[in-house]
Each structure stands twice: as C-alpha cells, then as structure tokens.
C-alpha cells in the first residue's frame, strides 16, 4: 500500500488534477480517492467580500498538519494523503485548501478526509481576515467547527 504524506503550505495556487494524479499513480490496491477542496466564497455573513488574507505560524503549522494526517492514519487504513493549505491574499472563487485521501475501500477515505478537515479547522494555526468595502475583519471561529472536531474523540 502507498502510505505517502504530501503536506504543503503555500501562497501559490494548486492544481486538483495534478494532486489527483499523484494520489492515483503507483497505487493499484486503492479503489477509492476522496478529495475536498475549499474555495473562497463571495459572501460572509450574507455580506459581499472582496477576498481573504490568510496568516499562519509556519513552524507550528508544519508540525500540526503532519500530526493530523498521522492521527488519521492511526484511525483508518489509508494509502496516500495530501494536504495543501494556501496563505496570503485570496480572491473569491480561489482555492484555499485541498485534502486528498486514498484507501482500498471508500469508507476510510471519506472519514479520514472529513477528520483531517475537521481537525485542521480547530487545530492548525491559520487565521483568516475577510476583506470588504466595510473594512477588514478577522474571522471568528465557528462553534460548529469545534463540535465537529470534538466528535471524533
């Protein structure tokens, strides 16, 4: 089985097709690939925004993202796992985050993918600011994200 982690934090955009191809290559035992892509929405709390600014704590991000993927590996039998998070200025409709997981059968890939996103939301040191005509505003954490994250424990 292919047990490779690919974890990137970058300002550049990523290419889903390329990431999918990497997950698929040399992986004849895995029959399931689940991808999640997060995109910048054009609204926040029902008001239009011009984009986002994403800041992070590089030394800690690397550590936390690696940990999250390893935790997923202890919970489910998964093959390849890719996690890409963008930082800096992003405009609406741009890609922010990618999670790709492969597994022999579909359930592990689905659950590991959800788990990685849920933990990333509450554990990884990223901070998001919404940019709009009304002024810039740091995003408040969502209670629903904490509940989703807690539910895996």
């Amino acid at each position, binding site marked *: 089985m292919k047990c490779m982690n690919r974890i990137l934090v970058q300002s550049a955009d990523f290419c889903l097709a390329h990431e999918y191809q990497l997950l698929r290559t040399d992986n004849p035992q895995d029959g399931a690939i689940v991808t999640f892509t997060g995109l910048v929405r054009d609204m926040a709390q029902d008001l239009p925004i011009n984009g986002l600014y994403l800041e992070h704590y590089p030394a800690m991000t690397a*550590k936390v993202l690696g940990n999250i993927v390893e935790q997923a590996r202890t919970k489910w039998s998964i093959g390849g796992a890719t996690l890409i998070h963008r930082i800096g200025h992003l405009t609406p409709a741009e890609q922010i985050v990618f999670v790709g997981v492969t597994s022999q059968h579909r359930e592990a890939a689905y659950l590991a993918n959800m788990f990685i996103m849920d933990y990333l939301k509450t554990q990884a040191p*990223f*901070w998001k600011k919404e940019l709009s005509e009304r002024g810039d505003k740091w995003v408040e954490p969502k209670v629903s994200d904490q509940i989703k994250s807690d539910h895996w424990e």
Partner: protein
Amino acid sequence: MINVLFFGQLRERLGQDSMTLEYKVDGQQLDTVKALRSYLQLRPGWHEWLEEGSVLVAVNQDMSAEDAAILDGAEVAFFPPVTGG
C-alpha cells in the same frame, strides 16, 4: 531567552509580531505560561488582549495550558482561536 510570537488579530492589537525576553526578569523566572502571561499583561493596554481563555498559547509549537513549563530558549506563541481551512 524566550522568543515570544503573536499572530492574527492579537499581532495587530499589540502592534508587534515578536519579541525576545530574558528568561529571568526582575528577579523572576518566566518558567510557566502563567508567569509569562502575567509578566506581559503588565504592559499598558495588554492586559485584556492576553487574558486566559481569549488567546491560545503554544510552547515550542505545541498547544499548551497555563501550567505548562517554559524552558530557557523556548519559543512561545500567543494567538486567537484558529480559523483556517
């Protein structure tokens, strides 16, 4: 020495992203999160922004509680709840 970092809204509120402190200041060692936090909260206007519960603390990149030890040379970061993804 302790390398202190601030991120996100907290960085903006305090107007700085990092500072280097002596491990022993005013005869006191900044050897726990609690001790460091209390020391920083003495600065004018910083008290409310660094309150326990409103900011998170990571010691050497690991999320840490109030009683976590800080060793000389540590990197300690204060930041608001995270909002990535």
